[in-house]
């Protein structure tokens, strides 16, 4: 086994005091010196925008990059359902402890306790901050904030702004960011894609970007680099992520020496619109909040083609309520997804493809009235109608699971620093807080906790020890990195093969979905590894990329991202093969209980799998960060 010791730098002391103790003991940068430091923040989603804005407020000199034309378009904008916080405004027994426990348990005991506790602790500050920014959360008639319960929680701790919570929180962070742009502390670089990380003397000191309008390669130097570039579900081709969401920034950092944590931990979201047909570019998520009032069912008879309203109550199988009476339709995402897949695999699925289950609101409409349902889910129902042409007020929705979120990401310590000094990873780009499965309404919470409250404290501790040294992009390391990036671009454009980038991406997606998707086994994973290797070899021999390097060129952008996915996919399969247990969203068919639930093997796999790049993907080495549970004792998850 490896000799590498991964120090998570978890502060000493009782869990409830760790963060306050840490804050009280970190080094500070004096207000007059902050502006002498340049911090590069890549990404403008919840994590990136909140970090850039807050660092700017503190007085640092911030350079903020995004691939979109405006920071407001980062994919956090699409989160629908809500954000958790342990405010206990509903007096239903919630607390920081309970949110901590729920998150650890929901993640199937594969997350770091200290981080998760801190997340729960900071959740309350996020709501305060967002409200102060003008985020129009839902309210009660008395003017106080409204809450709802959300997948996997037995308390109502989710704050929401209709079905557009991510949008409103992002616009809050974006407005704070634009205020700093106006103040001159943050300089914004939209339409830039980070293509390499520059390391000097072992420290992250800059980035190489492609200007997506002119095609020019640009370099930027700084005292630290923060990656908040999101997750990598697009490796599956069809996912709920945006079509431009990609792994390139974190992947290139991985290849420069940042370790990758739990790459195989992916979340397949249960409530998405089923695949409709050829040419589809993405899958659309319907917020999980729908499961609060919608009931999931399939016909009791296999291959029943009757329209749903003709199937009498007695011939319906409400399979989540049947299998999980305590939580019913509100079981965590991984369980709901697998249950839906199972009934479809057995032939009970509905709709033209048989790969869908019903989500029925008839009872809720009868109980609450159509107006209440419209107020709660109106925009989601409209969206469903737009896409399918069916009216969910009258006929049940058809839903099916789709890749949605990646719990894996760059390994970070308690300070959110990767294994490369001065390189930080925030939000979905890091592996941190969700273990093997993320609870609903926790992604927004984590992104904002990282960006508003954690990084601005921890980065000062690092910078205080690393004074500005006047580094500029004239340092030869920048020219070398540019050469490397340029070579890859030239190579992509010179292959002039026969298959388009999209075809390769589609084929990769098929392999990932079939063998590295919702349920996995050793044989399938081995096949995935060799299939991906073959596909990658074919890509570099036969891909067709058109246009010029020094121009607006979407095809070239896409080719670079798919090239990276073709490597990342292999690492995901290797990690899934290595983890011989089932936990959360990672379900290995060999390891299940007699009634088909995930079987964790705490004696062997109570660790973070942390991968180090060694020149070839297949040679990557797996290290372990052992997970110690002092406060949330692992138990077999039961939602029955």
């Amino acid at each position, binding site marked *: 086994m490896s000799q590498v010791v991964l120090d998570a730098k978890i502060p000493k002391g009782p869990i409830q005091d760790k963060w306050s103790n840490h804050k009280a003991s970190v080094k500070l940068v004096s207000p007059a010196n902050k502006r002498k430091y340049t911090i590069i923040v890549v990404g403008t989603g919840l994590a990136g925008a909140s970090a850039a804005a807050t660092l700017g407020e503190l007085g640092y000199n911030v350079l903020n990059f995004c691939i979109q034309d405006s920071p407001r378009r980062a994919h956090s904008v699409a989160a629908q359902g809500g954000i958790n916080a342990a405010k206990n405004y509903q007096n239903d027994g919630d607390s920081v402890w309970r949110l901590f426990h729920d998150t650890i348990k929901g993640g199937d005991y594969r997350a770091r306790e200290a981080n998760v506790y801190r997340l729960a602790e900071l959740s309350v500050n996020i709501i305060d901050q967002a409200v102060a920014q003008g985020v129009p959360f839902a309210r009660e008639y008395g003017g106080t904030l409204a809450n709802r319960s959300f997948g996997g929680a037995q308390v109502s701790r989710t704050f929401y702004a209709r079905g557009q919570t991510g949008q409103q929180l992002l616009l809050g962070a*974006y407005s704070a960011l634009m205020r700093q742009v106006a103040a001159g502390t943050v300089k914004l670089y939209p339409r830039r894609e980070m293509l390499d990380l520059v390391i000097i003397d072992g420290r992250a000191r800059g980035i190489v970007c492609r200007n997506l309008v002119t095609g020019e390669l640009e370099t930027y130097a700084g005292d630290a680099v923060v990656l908040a570039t999101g997750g990598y579900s697009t490796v599956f081709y069809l996912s709920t992520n945006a079509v431009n969401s990609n792994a390139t920034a974190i992947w290139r950092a991985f290849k420069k020496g940042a370790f990758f944590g739990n790459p195989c931990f992916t979340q397949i979201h249960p409530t998405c619109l089923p695949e409709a047909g050829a040419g589809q570019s993405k899958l659309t998520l319907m917020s999980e909040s729908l499961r609060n009032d919608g009931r999931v069912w399939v016909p009791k008879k296999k291959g029943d083609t009757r329209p749903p309203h003709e199937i009498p109550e007695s011939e319906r199988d409400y399979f989540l309520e049947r299998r999980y009476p305590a939580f019913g339709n509100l079981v965590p995402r991984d369980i709901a997804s697998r249950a839906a897949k199972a009934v479809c695999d057995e032939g009970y699925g509905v709709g033209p493809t048989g790969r869908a289950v019903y989500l029925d609101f008839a009872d809720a409409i009868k109980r609450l009235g159509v107006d209440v349902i419209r107020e709660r889910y109106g925009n989601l129902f409209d969206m469903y109608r*737009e896409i399918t042409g069916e009216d969910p007020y009258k006929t049940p929705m058809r839903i099916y699971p789709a890749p949605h979120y990646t719990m894996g990401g760059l390994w970070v310590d308690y300070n959110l620093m990767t294994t490369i000094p001065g390189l930080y990873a925030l939000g979905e780009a890091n592996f941190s807080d969700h273990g093997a499965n993320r609870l609903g309404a926790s992604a927004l919470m984590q992104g904002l906790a990282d960006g508003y409250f954690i990084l601005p404290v921890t980065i000062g501790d690092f910078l205080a020890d690393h004074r500005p040294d006047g580094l500029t992009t004239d340092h030869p390391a920048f020219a070398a990195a540019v050469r490397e990036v340029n070579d890859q671009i030239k190579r992509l454009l010179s292959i002039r093969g026969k298959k388009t980038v999209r075809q390769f991406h589609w084929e990769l997606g098929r392999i990932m979905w079939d063998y590295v998707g919702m349920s996995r086994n050793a044989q399938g994973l081995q096949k995935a590894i060799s299939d991906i290797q073959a596909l990658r070899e074919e890509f570099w021999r036969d891909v067709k990329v058109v246009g010029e390097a020094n121009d607006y060129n979407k095809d070239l952008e896409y080719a670079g991202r798919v090239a990276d996915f073709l490597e990342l996919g292999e690492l995901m399969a290797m990690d899934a093969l290595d983890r011989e247990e089932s936990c959360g969203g990672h379900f290995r068919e060999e390891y299940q209980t007699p009634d088909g639930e995930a079987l964790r093997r705490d004696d062997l796999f109570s660790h973070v799998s942390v991968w180090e790049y060694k020149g070839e993907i297949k040679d990557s080495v797996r290290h372990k960060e052992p997970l110690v549970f002092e406060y949330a004792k692992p138990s077999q998850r039961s939602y029955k």
Partner: protein
Amino acid sequence: MKFHLKIWRQAGPDQPGRFEEYTVDNIVPEMSFLEMLDQLNEELIREGKEPIAFESDCREGICGACGLVINGMAHGPKRGCTTCELRMREFPDGAHITVEPFRADAFPVIKDLVVDRSALDRIIAAGGYISVNTGSAPDANAIPIPKDIAEEAMDAAACIGCGACVAACPNASAALFTAAKVSHLALLPQGHPERERRVIRMVDQMDAEGFGSCSNHGECEAACPKGISIVNIARMRREYIRASTSKAGARAVL
């Protein structure tokens, strides 16, 4: 389904543009308008031709990246939906469809159907925020906000910043975009301390960016994929007049 397309092609900001004609076949009705363009681009790439540049990201109507003028209408013929949400079943088989970028002086063309909308970001930077540093917020329930006010603010805050209002307006005015943000923040008590300077600065920035003036055509509301009402423009005017005649507003002008 089969469609005959006339699409605006333009190599760069300073290059002359022109329409080019394409025919696409084997389109399924469930496809979105952008997926139809994806298919056309795949064919162009296979032929070694340059694909049509257009923008999109979330493809579920919330990020605001996409935006095309389709048959003369921003985001196409269907009300209340973005280009990415528009399905091909909205068009009759064999239809002739014209596709152009969002046109406005303040939105210069970058390439083909891609335009530069950074002017909208600069309007927000001019004052579309509440000045509250991280960490200085009071408890979230400290200020009760009546439900109907919160809902009204949310109606305005739902703007996705796509710029369809500008493209639809005969004057290329950004009044609806600006008014949506002014309204959102003016309605909420948190927004009141900066109410006057915000509206003055945002409106001044809007004018400086070269957007036209609003003359109450109402095309913006019709084109808005999120149904933002022009009532917000009326509110912005009220806010502007109120600010212009107040001390706080006068300070903002300086």
